[in-house]
């Protein structure tokens, strides 16, 4: 009796047919892959681009009978996706993709920054399809992207370490702000074009954004005292909040920084906020622009560090 599921029962011709079918199916998988690649590289439609990138990032190219020795990884498809996303919005010049000579691997430069600073995606967690956008030398993950779950999470720790600590003084402020704007734009495109859930974190310039602290809801009085003294030395008066407990700082650029307890007086839930008429200024922008705020923030970073999504950046 011939059982098609059991090769040992097949006749020779049956085996050859089964072999041939397996190769056909393997080649079909490869062909479909190349179509998706064409779509990823060439489409001018954002929806098609996302669809190709998502499919490729989860694609299994090899089969038992057909394997492909040269393959790009999910990390590379993610990188290609964001490059192309910016390109579709007329900002292709903001980043440059670099490919390795010896293997299938991509990395990216931010045009506004030094060309030796390289970024690429790196797996976040083996149980998760998302990827972290990392700087090569420091390994700092600026953001987490998950095309499948349609979410983007910026990481305030990495933005602080990289742009406020590491590059401060080496790269001029204008270039830093320009580079960071590229990431913000990307977030906005993902949000507008596909309805991604985006947490801009310390880059969020919306007035409704309330920045929480990474290490809890308490804030020592001395931290606010330090801001009071530092601001006075720069000619700014840290004002007492009119309502509740807290402090308010009006800066020359029109932004108003508030550090306040949003809970009842008997409880403690300190947060930070930035308001400006145009809703264009974020806490990050102020750290770049104002030296005394940067010094204040970094001196007590253990208390002041802005909280990132704890589900992603534990």
């Amino acid at each position, binding site marked *: 009796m011939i059982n098609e599921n059991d090769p040992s029962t097949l006749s020779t011709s049956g085996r050859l047919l089964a072999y041939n079918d397996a190769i056909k199916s393997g080649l079909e998988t490869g062909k479909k892959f190349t179509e998706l690649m064409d779509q990823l590289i060439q489409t001018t439609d954002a929806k098609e681009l996302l669809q190709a990138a998502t499919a490729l990032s989860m694609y299994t190219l090899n089969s038992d009978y057909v394997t492909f020795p040269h393959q790009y990884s999910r990390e590379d498809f993610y990188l290609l996706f964001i490059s192309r996303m910016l390109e579709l919005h007329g900002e292709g010049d903001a980043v440059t993709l670099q490919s390795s000579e010896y293997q299938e691997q991509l990395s990216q430069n931010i045009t506004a920054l030094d060309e030796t600073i390289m970024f690429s995606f790196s797996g976040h967690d083996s149980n998760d399809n998302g990827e972290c956008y990392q700087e090569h030398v420091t390994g700092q993950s600026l953001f987490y992207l998950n095309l499948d779950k349609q979410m983007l999470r910026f990481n305030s720790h990495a933005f602080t370490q990289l742009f406020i600590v590491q590059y401060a003084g080496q790269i001029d402020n204008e270039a830093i702000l320009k580079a960071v704007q590229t990431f913000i734009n990307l977030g906005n495109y993902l949000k507008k074009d596909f309805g991604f859930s985006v947490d801009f974190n310390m880059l969020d310039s919306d007035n409704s954004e309330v920045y929480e602290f990474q290490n809890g809801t308490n804030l020592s009085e001395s931290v606010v005292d330090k801001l009071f003294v530092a601001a*006075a030395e720069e000619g700014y008066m840290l004002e*007492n909040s009119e309502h509740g407990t807290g402090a308010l700082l009006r800066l020359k650029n029109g932004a108003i920084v508030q550090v306040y307890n949003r809970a009842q007086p008997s409880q403690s839930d300190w947060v930070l906020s930035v308001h400006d008429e145009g809703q264009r200024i974020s806490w990050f922008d102020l750290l770049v622009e104002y030296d005394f705020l940067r010094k204040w923030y970094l001196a007590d970073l253990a208390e002041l560090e802005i909280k990132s999504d704890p589900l992603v950046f534990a």
Partner: protein
Amino acid sequence: MDNQGQTSEAEQNQLDVQLNGAITEKIDYLTSLQKAIQEKHDLKVYELIDAPRFNKLIKKTNLKPNATALETLVDDLHAQISHYLSHHLIDYLGKTYPFFYYDEVSLGQFKIYFGNWWDRRQFGSLDVINIAFNFNEDEFAKLRTGFELEAEGKRYNSDKIAEISSQSTELQKLMTQQGERDQRKELLRSQLKENGQKSTLPWDSGKVKEERQVIIDQLSELADQDEAALEANNTIKDNDDLILSLSKEDTIINYEMQSIKKTFEDFSRFNQRNQSLYTDYLNSLVGEARVKTDD
């Protein structure tokens, strides 16, 4: 017994009339006060609640103090009257003392806050009935000292901060010199060993002992410094906290001084104006009343 026997009928009538008059006087007083409050005639209210002062300072007529002291009739209403009078007075003070803020802690009782900056000081209380500031003596003294020191180019805590900073600098030095001290200790210990091996000829023994003592003293001094260096880190941190609170106080006093200078030019004019607050305020009400009648 006839209790009425002691006064004649005529005298009795006389007393009744007097009593009637006294009651009428009180009713009139209360009616006037009620009317003044109804008509929001604050000037009149102030006249009624302290006629002698009002007569002396505003009317400039040196009338004898009112023998019947009708003012005492409303002693138990001072909290309410103070609350009522505060509205207009605080409006006035908002313009003349723009840096003071008031908090009505209980009916008619006002705390004064100096400024709207972070952790501004509670500076005393406002006596609405008597139109006067009751400044907190300690806080006021700091402000006065601040003005005195300004002439020397100093701030209230400049000296203290300089002293603590130099202590921290010394401690920092003590910490960085640990390596040098360790080397010196090693040298001294080997000298001590050498000293112990020296032949103790009787005529030398005094000299050897003396040398030994010098080395031991130096070693113990170094040990003290080592100990201080170990403590230094904590002390420097404590010093930083102390400097922060002193700088904060300096910043607050400086803001207060700037506020006063902006409005009154200098501290003495500020003080003069505080002394004449009663007449200044009530004369401004006289002026307002005049404007109203002119309308």
